[in-house]
């Protein structure tokens, strides 16, 4: 089926060229980072995880959200999602590959990455994250590819895929739970030391991932693929509920922190939303995130705007960027500010760091483009065949 990715419109090839160029720029700067060290980034002694690990965290959520398409279709036989579950699975594949790449890019000694396998350390959450992420990648790649290949031949998927599909549902929950545990289990980082971390991660994941899929579906005019109104509207409701839950969880955190008034817990939130001791690099970002969240909720909760595809696309964009700021910027960096010694060290990504990040995103989007191209071409072919031979 790979050959389907090799023929396409000029728009398709133009998009692919842009992505490859961005990947090239990213790769060039990564080589510089390899020779100079991670000092080429904006990370410092106090802020030791930043843009890369934040992207990783955000994208684990996008990957996990595939379950929002798989679960209704396979567990509840919700037929409207039949056409698009493959898009969820392929989005998971592209996102997990991005996640793993961001982790590798963030390592000080990437050539030693296999030490994680040579010296397996079950007491380390990172070890388990490696296990669940690779497992999830494998599951979605195998499931997506096999189901699509059988569909192309006009056959039902082979029996052995079913158990894998059922396994992929709790597995999706596990990847984001384990990723949350990376943060939530650290004794000295009060910003992350909260049991709601995993539920909050899942809430925001189930909003941002389906929002991205919806955006792709609404761009269907570029491909001629129609997911169907019912599927789009159901997905829109999923995004709405998940976004409400996500915002609710953040508000719960804010209540606990500010009503209890424990300084150590308050400092991080103050830094994030209003600035602390004159430092507040993330403040404008966070308010942008809040504004986008509010706009998206207004558009999503109102049935009139939710049912209009233009407004829905806008709402989905707002959801995606709002949560990208919240998780892709705020959540990781703020855990380090202030430091365990009560120092405030601001973080600002450097140019090479941003270009490497863009390069990894471009790689992920290229994988996503190729996979979606294959999936949509196959579906279109089946669609046109069944139109010409209605008896089949």
């Amino acid at each position, binding site marked *: 089926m790979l050959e389907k990715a090799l023929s396409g419109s000029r728009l398709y090839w133009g998009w692919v060229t842009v992505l490859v160029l961005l990947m090239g720029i990213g790769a060039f700067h990564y080589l510089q980072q390899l020779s100079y060290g991670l000092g080429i980034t904006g990370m410092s002694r106090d802020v030791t995880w930043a843009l890369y690990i934040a992207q990783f965290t955000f994208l684990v959520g996008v990957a996990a959200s595939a379950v929002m398409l798989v679960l209704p279709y396979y567990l509840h036989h919700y037929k409207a999602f039949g056409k698009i579950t493959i898009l969820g699975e392929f989005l998971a594949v592209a996102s997990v590959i991005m996640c793993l790449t961001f982790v590798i890019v963030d*390592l000080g000694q990437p050539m030693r990455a296999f030490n994680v396998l040579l010296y397996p350390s079950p007491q380390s959450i990172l070890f388990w994250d490696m296990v669940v992420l690779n497992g999830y990648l494998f599951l979605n790649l195998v499931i997506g590819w096999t189901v699509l290949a059988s569909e192309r031949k006009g056959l039902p998927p082979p029996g052995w895929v079913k158990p894998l599909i059922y396994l992929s549902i709790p597995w999706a929950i596990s990847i984001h739970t384990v990723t949350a545990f990376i943060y939530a289990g650290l*004794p*000295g980082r009060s910003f992350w030391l909260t049991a709601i971390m995993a539920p909050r991660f899942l809430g925001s994941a189930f909003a941002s991932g389906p929002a991205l899929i919806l955006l792709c579906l609404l761009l269907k005019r570029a491909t001629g693929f129609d997911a169907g109104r019912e599927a789009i509207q159901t997905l829109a409701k999923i995004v709405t509920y998940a976004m409400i839950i996500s915002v609710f969880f953040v508000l719960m955190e804010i209540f606990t922190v500010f009503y209890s008034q424990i300084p150590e817990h308050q400092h991080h939130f103050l830094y994030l939303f209003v600035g602390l001791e004159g430092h507040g690099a993330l403040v404008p970002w966070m308010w942008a995130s809040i504004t986008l969240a509010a706009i998206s909720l207004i558009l999503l909760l109102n049935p009139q705007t939710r049912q209009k595809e233009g407004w829905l696309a806008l709402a989905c964009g707002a959801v995606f960027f709002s949560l990208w700021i919240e998780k892709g910027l705020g959540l990781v960096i703020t855990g380090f500010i202030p430091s365990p010694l009560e120092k405030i060290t601001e973080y600002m990504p450097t140019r090479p760091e941003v270009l490497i990040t863009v390069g990894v995103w471009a790689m992920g989007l290229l994988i996503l483009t190729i996979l979606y191209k294959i999936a949509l071409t196959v579906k279109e072919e089946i669609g046109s065949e069944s139109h010409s031979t209605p008896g089949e």
Partner: protein
Amino acid sequence: MEESRRRFFRIAAASLLALGAKPLKTLGGYGGGSFSRLGTEAPRRRWAMAVDLTKCREGCRDCIEACHQVHNVPDFGNPKDEIKWIWQEPFRNVFPAHEHPWMAREYRRLPVVVLCNHCDQPPCVRVCPTQATFRREEDGIVMMDYHRCIGCRFCVAGCPYGARSMNFRDPRPFIRQIDPRFPTRTKGVVEKCNFCEERLAQGRLPACVEACKERALIFGNLEDPASEIRQVLQNRFSLRRKPELGTQPQIYYLV
């Protein structure tokens, strides 16, 4: 480089074996205190340090310089890439819970020496995905294997004391004078205080303890009731950093 480092390890290993053949107690009498007063005769060992805040002099950097010299700690000259094994912080930053507005000013400004706490329950060891950082069972030192570390910095996030530094770039050009008796590190690995395990193996005191002319740093074996550190912890009130986290830090501050 590779070849000479290997040779260094061979020589180091051979010397350690030779030294190990002699009982440690005969190697006493160094700098600030005699090695035999550390409690080396006890059957079990648990190294710990007490910092006497009343003796530490403002502006003195003897312990820091001694440590950073013998361990080839680089000086990048900027706080972003900074690597430190032992350094000073104001009292209020080290013990935020103990600060209040009516505390004597000299107390609030008091420089407090901080270093790795060699916790009994070290979170950094728990989170390391390769066991590159580990707690040595026989004496409780939390150590690093610089050849196994992948530079993921999970330990840095896990340490509640900010004791760990990442080599954000090649440290070697920034070492003032390389001491060939201790390995230099490479870019991309994490490092921290090792309680001078290489010196203890030779029956010598940690470099910071030896360098402190005020005798503000007291080092020894907590398993030996006769050791100086046990005596001083018994007779004086001491604080530990963030004891509520349950990490069981082994640096005690005498007030």
